């Protein structure tokens, strides 16, 4: 074997890597292959749910283990006329609507929400991008609110509609009842021992501690109990799921 052929082989290997990768790109555009590629989400969710304790608590940390500064991401300020008016009134007129498949639809003021028993937890926030920050959150457990509204047996998902708009449509997210009923799933109005600020979702945001950051809806205005995600947005259960195909199950 001559050296030239060897060199050719090395060059060939590098070139074929590029060809293979663009081949993968083409595959990922094929409708049938996309179904296979996207089936990994259900497999990972199924494996995680089957192999682990569904009620397991996310790790909680000591105050000295918190991030010195907790960065913001996504919408830093909804900056709509409605929201700006609410912020100017220090969210005194904010209402959280609890609707859908519930026996008693609720309309809660921030004062109502602050009177509910609060859970405080120092947890790690993991962005889908890869960074993590540890912060302290406080607010009522979502299950307290759902119980007050009387969740129907037909409800399968809880949908959160937000005050921030993306291309004119409100940000939204959804979780199933395993996470909705989890003790660490709270509607946080406190962060790091202060009122939640605008950058982090004032006046109210979701914490769903066993999933990635984009699931933690900020500026929550409405909680809907639904039987199916079809017909909401484009039907994939969340803004990023609808627009760029992020996984609905973001436990990994």
């Amino acid at each position, binding site marked *: 074997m001559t050296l030239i052929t060897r060199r050719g*082989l090395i060059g060939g290997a590098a070139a074929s890597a590029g060809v293979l990768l663009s081949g*993968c790109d083409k595959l990922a555009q094929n409708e049938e292959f996309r179904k296979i590629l996207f089936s*990994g989400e259900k497999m990972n969710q199924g494996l995680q749910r089957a192999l682990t304790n569904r009620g397991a608590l*996310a790790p909680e940390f000591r105050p000295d283990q918190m991030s010195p*500064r907790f960065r913001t991401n996504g919408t830093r300020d909804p900056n709509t006329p409605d929201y700006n008016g609410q912020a100017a009134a220090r969210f005194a007129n904010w209402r959280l609507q609890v609707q859908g498949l519930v026996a008693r639809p609720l309309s809660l003021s921030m004062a109502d929400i602050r009177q509910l028993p609060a859970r405080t937890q120092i947890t790690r926030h993991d962005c889908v*991008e890869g*960074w993590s920050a540890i912060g302290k959150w406080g607010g009522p457990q979502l299950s307290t609110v759902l119980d007050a509204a009387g969740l129907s047996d037909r409800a399968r998902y809880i949908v959160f509609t937000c005050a921030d708009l993306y291309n004119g449509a409100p940000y939204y997210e959804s979780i199933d009842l395993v996470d909705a009923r989890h003790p660490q799933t709270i509607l946080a109005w406190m962060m790091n021992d202060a009122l939640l600020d605008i950058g982090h979702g004032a006046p109210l945001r979701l914490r769903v501690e066993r999933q990635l950051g984009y699931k933690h809806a900020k500026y929550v205005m409405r909680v809907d109990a639904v039987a199916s995600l079809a017909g909401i947005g484009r039907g994939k259960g969340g803004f990023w799921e609808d627009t*760029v195909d*992020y996984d609905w199950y973001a436990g990994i």
Partner: protein
Amino acid sequence: MVEQSPPAAPGTMIHRHALATRLWHWVTAIAMFIMIGSGIGILKAHPHLYWGRYGANFDSPWLSLSWMPGWVSTGLNILTLPTNYNLALSRRWHLLFALVLAFALLAFMIVSLVNRHFQRQLRVRAGELAPRNVLHDLKEHLAFRFHDPADPSAYNIFQKLSYVGVIFVLIPLLILTGLTMSPALNAAWPWLLDLFGGRQSARSIHFIAAFGITLFIVVHLVLVILAGPINELRSMITGRWRVPGDDS
């Protein structure tokens, strides 16, 4: 089998790789290629690495892609899957093929214990790690003589150490640090976080192990080419390997 019978004569064809080994090799080769490409895509979303439990823009990374010379990012761009930045699709590729990689390794480990591939071909014997033997194998390597004339089909100490390192250290480390980045698994198996010293440490170790695998692949490919690519490739496809003679 091979090691009990006298070494085959140069030029004869022997059955070198079991079907399970060949299947695992190619499944892992494809999966690893996709994992590296999509992994680079995911890294690009936040190209900074930290030690500890947390790490974000206001914290101090130990490594940042922005410190790298331009040719590094050009090289990474060539290998990225998908070729245009798309975090969602990179994650879809990565998290599906992670399952392929992990379960293929699990199956290969079970089969290779049962068919005694690990015990027969990969077990490092005490004398092999003696400095004299290591030095001898190193000299032979540098002279491009990769096979022991007395037993050409046996792996030398560098092969054994690198294969054992990949099968029992690097890939398991990639799988475990990958699992440690899952917030749901952090709740279920918090010992993973203790093992690696926090999620951002696990992310850094994941990257270092992936870099190690990439180095292995480069050296592996170069040595396959130097050792005779047609014979080596054939042995990993059909299992049949021609025993190299003095002239090869």
